[in-house]
């Protein structure tokens, strides 16, 4: 055995240097810690978390929009917090559980309701007055037991986007049967007719995709009073239709949404049913394959709706400053700019499309026309139970798709499990 010092001659300096560096930089980073809510320039810092910030294109535009606020304020600085979408909710709730977290949060609807139920977000009736703004219809979902906990940062409708060059006649399907036929015909030469999610790894996305099928066949997850209808004939018809498409060999099975959307703008997928935010990205990224939009090819017009509220963390120490940012965001000019940067999405207040927008993105009309038929994807009256319900429904759906279980059998089981395990909980 070599003597220690000679045996690790190469390591000792590294370790010693590393220790010194780690301790020095670690100590320095302590000094940089945000132990106070003031920035180096003495401004009150408001942290704002939204998964948008990580997106290509929209992320930078949203940061620039926030920076406009910072430029207008002598005493407040809003700092965007980038958290990957895949771990956004987990991270935020973990931080909230530890009595911290960002001051302002753009949640998805299920997490919003969960946060309200856990009293993790603040009522903001004193910050946002009902009569002061022309809110869109989606605003009705921002109140719980009469108190406002946020406003819609963005809402997006669902419709079909298609690549005419990949469809046999260049025209979109109008019926479900035609949709399956065209999808099969477009599936050749390494291209696919359609794409949706069908893995537990993307449970949330599967839920939204399935909801469009269920609503499109006339179903609802629940009655307005919260009575579950997971095994109603219409819901089962939607699940069976999902299975029909899955079995038709027209989708890239197992592909995640980020990948098949990329495939779409690379001209490899003919049709998708997706929300307006996605449509905007598809058009900006896939310039070589211009998209068009059409109503989803289902018997009923109703489709799901993405609704993402912005709210204030109950742990915040800078509520007033956060409130000023929210008030600024609701001003007409800010709403106009926000809607433009978000693309085919609406904002909290009613904002008319500009002629320039409609000329650049004519397919926006299809998405906007869908507004009266959009319904939140959450089971009405059961919003706070949504995560557990989604887990059970998607498990049963996968049994239908991959396990050969009949749709009616699977949804009967879903109804039973949700009633026994989820709704029985106090």
């Amino acid at each position, binding site marked *: 055995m070599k003597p220690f010092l000679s045996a690790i001659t190469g390591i000792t300096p590294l*370790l010693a240097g590393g220790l010194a560096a*780690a301790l020095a930089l670690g100590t320095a980073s302590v000094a940089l810690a945000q132990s106070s809510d003031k920035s180096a320039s003495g401004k009150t810092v408001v942290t704002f*978390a939204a998964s948008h910030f*990580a997106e290509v294109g*929209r992320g930078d535009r949203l940061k620039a929009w926030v920076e406009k606020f910072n430029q207008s304020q002598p005493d407040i600085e809003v700092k965007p917090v980038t958290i*990957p979408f895949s771990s956004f909710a987990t991270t935020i709730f973990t931080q909230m559980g*530890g009595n911290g977290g960002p001051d302002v949060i753009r949640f998805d609807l299920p997490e919003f309701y969960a946060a309200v139920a856990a009293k993790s977000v603040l009522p903001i009736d004193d910050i946002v007055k009902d009569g002061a703004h022309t809110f869109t219809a989606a605003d009705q979902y921002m109140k719980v037991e009469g108190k406002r906990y946020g406003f819609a940062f963005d809402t997006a409708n669902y419709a079909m986007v298609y690549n005419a060059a990949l469809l046999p006649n260049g025209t979109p399907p109008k019926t479900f049967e035609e949709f399956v036929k065209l999808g099969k015909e477009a599936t050749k030469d390494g291209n696919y007719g359609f794409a949706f999610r069908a893995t537990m790894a993307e449970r949330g996305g599967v839920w939204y995709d399935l909801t469009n099928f269920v609503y499109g066949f006339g179903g609802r997850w629940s009655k307005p009073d919260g009575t579950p209808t997971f095994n109603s004939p219409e819901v089962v018809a939607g699940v069976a239709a999902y299975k029909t498409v899955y079995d038709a060999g027209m989708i890239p099975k197992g592909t995640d949404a980020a990948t098949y959307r990329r495939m779409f703008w690379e001209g490899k997928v003919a049709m998708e049913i997706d929300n307006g935010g996605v449509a905007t990205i598809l058009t900006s990224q896939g310039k070589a394959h211009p998209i068009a939009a059409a109503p989803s090819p289902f018997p009923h017009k109703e489709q799901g709706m993405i609704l993402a509220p912005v709210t204030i963390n109950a742990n915040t120490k800078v509520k007033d400053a956060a409130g000023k940012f929210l008030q600024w965001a609701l001003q007409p000019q800010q709403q106009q700019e926000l809607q433009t940067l978000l693309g085919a999405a609406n904002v909290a207040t009613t904002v008319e499309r500009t002629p320039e927008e409609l000329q650049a993105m004519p397919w926006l009309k299809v998405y906007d026309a869908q507004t009266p038929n959009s319904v939140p994807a959450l089971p009405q009256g059961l919003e706070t139970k949504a995560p557990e319900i989604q887990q059970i429904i998607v498990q049963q759906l996968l049994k239908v798709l991959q396990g050969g279980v009949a749709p009616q059998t699977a949804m009967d089981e879903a109804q039973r499990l949700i009633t026994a395990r989820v709704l029985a909980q106090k």
Partner: protein
Amino acid sequence: MKHNSTARTLAVLVLLGVAAFPLYWMLVTSLTPSERLFDATPNLLPTLSQIGTYAAAFTETSLRQWLVNSLIVAVGTTVLSILLSVLPAYALSRLTFNGKLLLGFALFMTQMLPEAMLVVPLYDIFTKLSLLNTLLGLILANTAFTVPVVTWILKGAIDGVPSEIEEAARVDGCSRLGIVLAVVVPLIAPTLAAAAVIAFFHGWNEYVFAQTFISDDALRTASVGLASFVGELSTPVHTVMAVGFIYTLPAVVFYLFVQRYVVAGMTTGGVKG
């Protein structure tokens, strides 16, 4: 004999290919033109025309800063883990005291709890200690997870050191601490290297704490930075692959640097007498 040698070489090459293929595939994907990314026939060779992806990874993202942060966390975790583990390992191996078994078991208790379970209380504690948004906080959290493993690895190595060597040092007037530092530690140097690799890899790859405790973009580690490319609506595949490829290299280099000691550490005690 020559036949055997050729077969062995082939077997080694096949194994090497299997081990290195994921890295190679990341490289190829990062260098495949967009329009060919989803071809039915995959691209097997990288296309140098796309090499700008790598330059862009450094100029258009914060990759350089993320790598520096990860390096600080990984090296800090490694150094602190080794420093804090040597004495407990020696105590568990050589000393007799009440509750020794319980202490050893208690050390492993921390390993039985997933990070996800500890992250909330740790977040609360770190808030009070102003350790949030600091690399030092990450180093401490990671060290708490690596110290038990490293301690037990070192204990196993110290068990293999003949006690007669220590007795000889004691006869020569060496103190207990002196024996540990001057006699025992040099003899277990290969195992120290193996333990350092484990600690380094943990610090380098750790995600949950890094994601939860750090909100300042300038202090993000590479594991979190890499994940941030995977968006809700789209993912820049080339960038993810390029950054992922670059992200693996420092860990590979570190392993290559210490691997000869690691191998020695793994074989130490294999043959006695």
